[in-house]
């Protein structure tokens, strides 16, 4: 897509507190997803499939895994002479050293990138979306309408903690208002995909009084000034990975007999850097039914309805059900994992039991850990014979000695002493 040139800015730097142990060492954009991907692979793959090759990724919080993952962008054919992908972390300047204070501020601080691109339109999207979106038709419509801004909208998600501001529009698509305090209107909400005409966005960012938040300080003033802002409804697969529950659900949806998000679609493959691992080997009699399984896995026990990332080892007699298990985690002999999200390099000791059952919400985070999931942070060790109930959080790097008791009831929290706290 040479004409009109489009600059894509992916916002991938915000800390995701609601992901707890999963989001302490990385942002939601860098979260492993679907057995071999990271969430940001969807944003990048959607761009290249849509012919958009000029991409900046704005990073700030815990950016290393994202930087390492994207590298020079080879996996997406983004290692290009013209355009390609650039990582844009916050940096110090001669006058004023500032972290990005918000989404709009991040754009302000990258004004030079926006100016250098000489783009006609600027696509700003959140890096934490799991979605297959062809931006082509959205761009076409945006141009036809002469929109200063197109807000791609999706049906309002349901569920606790999922309320978002509705985007109200006229039948023709022109947005009238984005009320911030309305009951459930049933109106669509922003998908966190915004397409600006560069002229208007630049003018806004150049103002001295621009606030830090993209929605409040850029979109709303444009609306108030009567600029042509349109809604573009998107009805394909779209999920925002903002919480533990959202992550778990968006992951488990991949296991449906006919998943709404088809990773096998040859015309819209999701690209990611591949690891050099041997193919998965299933040795035992435990059928990994209803599962996704990546390279390097070694399954000797039983696996059902689960997502296994590269290098997971399920030992003989171990059972993994309804769970997400990330890279190089070992589930030792006779251990049992159910309804759990187990981060990378975790060791589940012999005969231990993680997750499953029911119980009260998490004692420290009742609003985010109440659906029964157990979350085990990266590198943690669950002691042999230990029991970790539902809604439990085990900290990143927690050792066996950090467990106050071998048996932890539902809703517990295990902190890592002397280590990072979750």
């Amino acid at each position, binding site marked *: 897509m040479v004409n009109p040139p489009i600059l894509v800015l992916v916002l991938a730097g915000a800390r995701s507190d609601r992901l707890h142990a999963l989001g302490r060492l990385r942002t939601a954009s860098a979260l492993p997803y679907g057995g071999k991907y990271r969430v940001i692979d969807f944003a990048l793959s959607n761009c290249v499939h849509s012919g958009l090759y000029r991409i900046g990724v704005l990073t700030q919080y815990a950016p290393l895994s994202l930087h390492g993952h994207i590298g020079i962008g080879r996996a997406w054919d983004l290692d290009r002479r013209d355009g390609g992908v650039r990582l844009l972390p916050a940096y110090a300047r001669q006058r004023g050293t500032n972290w990005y204070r918000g989404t709009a501020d991040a754009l302000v601080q990258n004004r030079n990138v926006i100016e250098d691109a000489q783009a006609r339109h600027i696509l700003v999207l959140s890096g934490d979306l799991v979605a297959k979106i062809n931006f082509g038709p959205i761009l076409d419509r945006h141009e036809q309408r002469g929109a200063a801004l197109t807000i791609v909208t999706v049906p309002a998600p349901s569920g606790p903690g999922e309320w978002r501001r509705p985007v109200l529009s006229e039948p023709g698509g022109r947005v009238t208002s984005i009320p911030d305090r309305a009951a459930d209107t049933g109106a669509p909400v922003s998908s966190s995909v915004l397409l600006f005409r560069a002229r208007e966005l630049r003018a806004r960012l150049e103002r001295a009084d621009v606030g830090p938040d993209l929605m409040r300080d850029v979109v709303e003033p444009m609306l108030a000034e009567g600029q042509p802002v349109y809604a573009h409804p998107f009805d394909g697969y779209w999920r925002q990975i903002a919480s533990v529950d959202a992550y778990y659900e968006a992951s488990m949806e991949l296991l449906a007999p006919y998943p709404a998000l088809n990773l096998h679609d040859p015309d819209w*493959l999701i690209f990611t850097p591949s690891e050099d691992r*041997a193919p998965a080997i299933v040795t035992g009699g435990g059928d990994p039914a209803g599962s996704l399984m990546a390279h390097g896995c070694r399954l000797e026990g039983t696996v059902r309805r689960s997502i296994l990332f590269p290098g997971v080892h399920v030992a003989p007699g171990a059972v993994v059900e309804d769970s997400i298990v990330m890279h190089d985690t070992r589930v030792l002999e006779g251990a049992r994992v159910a309804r759990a999200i187990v981060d990378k390099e975790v060791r589940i000791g012999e005969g231990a039991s993680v997750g499953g059952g029911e119980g009260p919400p998490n004692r420290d985070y009742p609003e985010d850990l109440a659906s029964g999931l157990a979350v085990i942070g990266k590198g943690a060790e669950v002691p042999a014979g230990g029991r970790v109930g539902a809604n439990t959080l085990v900290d990143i790097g927690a050792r066996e000695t950090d467990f106050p008791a071998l048996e932890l009831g539902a809703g517990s929290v295990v902190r890592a002493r002397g280590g990072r706290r979750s």
Partner: protein
Amino acid sequence: MTAAVTYAMILAGGLGSRLCLLSEKRAKPAVPFGGKYRIIDFTLSNAVNSGIFDIGILTQYRPLSLRDHIAMGRPWDLDRKRGGVELLQPFQGWRENDWYRGTADAVWQNWLQVEERGAEHLLVLSGDHVYRMDYRPLVEAHLARGAEATVATFEVPREQASAFGVVRVDGAGWITGFLEKPKDPPSGRISMGVYVFHCGVLREALEKDARRTSAHDFGKDILPALVERGRVLAYPVPGYWQDIGTLDSYYQANLDLLSPEPAFPLEDPRWPIFTPSTENPPARLGPRAQVRASIVTHGTIVHGTVERSILFPGVVVEEGAVVRDSIVMGDSWIGPRAVLDRAILDKRVHVGRGAVVGRGDLATPNRVCPEHLSSGITIVGKHARIPEGIAIGRNARIAPDLTEEDFPGGDVPSGEALERPGGIPAHAATSA
């Protein structure tokens, strides 16, 4: 790598006729192996893991799939400014260049490559073996003993040795005899097809050989001639080494990977085997899938039953289908309730619903290649389409690109070889 050896040549040109259909459209080193690899990946990975990043691959027979596979050499970190990987095919020149008459002739015709590098010693490898080996100690032994050539050797049961070059070694480790494929091997100590040569000595031997009438072969001609000079060292290598010479050894080497403690584990973080990865999602196992003792790669979809089998990327096993003791290469489709038993399917084979591949008596060898297809394996060529509901016997051979119309009689009895009726269809000319 020891500075004395920085350049390796891999012999990858031979026509592997004993692999039957698998190597008809591709050089043997390009035959798929172990779920995601090609056979040459093992030698290439050994080389780069040993610190050799300057490699020439000598090819002649059907090099296209090898060329596609290796491309610029990125998976092996061989896309380099200095060194890298180069496919050396026969070319026409102003002098004696021609088709390669043998392995030695292939090296001789490319001797300029060796000369340009000014190397004192040259590593010569084969592209059709499955093994892990650090070449550095081999080179060190070669240098320390002041050998003119050093041959890596491996111990096999004596009765199997007649398929290889057998070496006779004296008490000090020097080779006193080199017998290429002897009928009655004196021992089980065989050449692995891994050599280090002193370039000056090799040059002389190749030049002399080029003017003679011979097979122009390292095993038959060059090594016996060098052994006579008395400075050829044997370097014993322990562990696992498998020559993929026949369909049976190919099948066995693949199924060996499935044992609970495989002699050759594919996964070894200290010595990874590199290969271009395909862009595929993780393997997807349907709610009723049953998978036992099998290798399953990215991009496969299993709804049926898979036992003691290897599935390459993109294979689909539909509901009710059974895949047993089989090797199924990329993008093949096994229809609902179809059965594979001791079958090797090349890429993009389509097995119609309810069809059976591999049923009936084991005793009838294949009528076209009885010597290579007699152990009960049935082989289906690339892109063939097996009609719904038919049964194909054992030791059978189904040519590539056959379509449903090419099975007028329905069932195919054991030992049958079903060939392409007319000429080669247009799409058969593409690389494997």
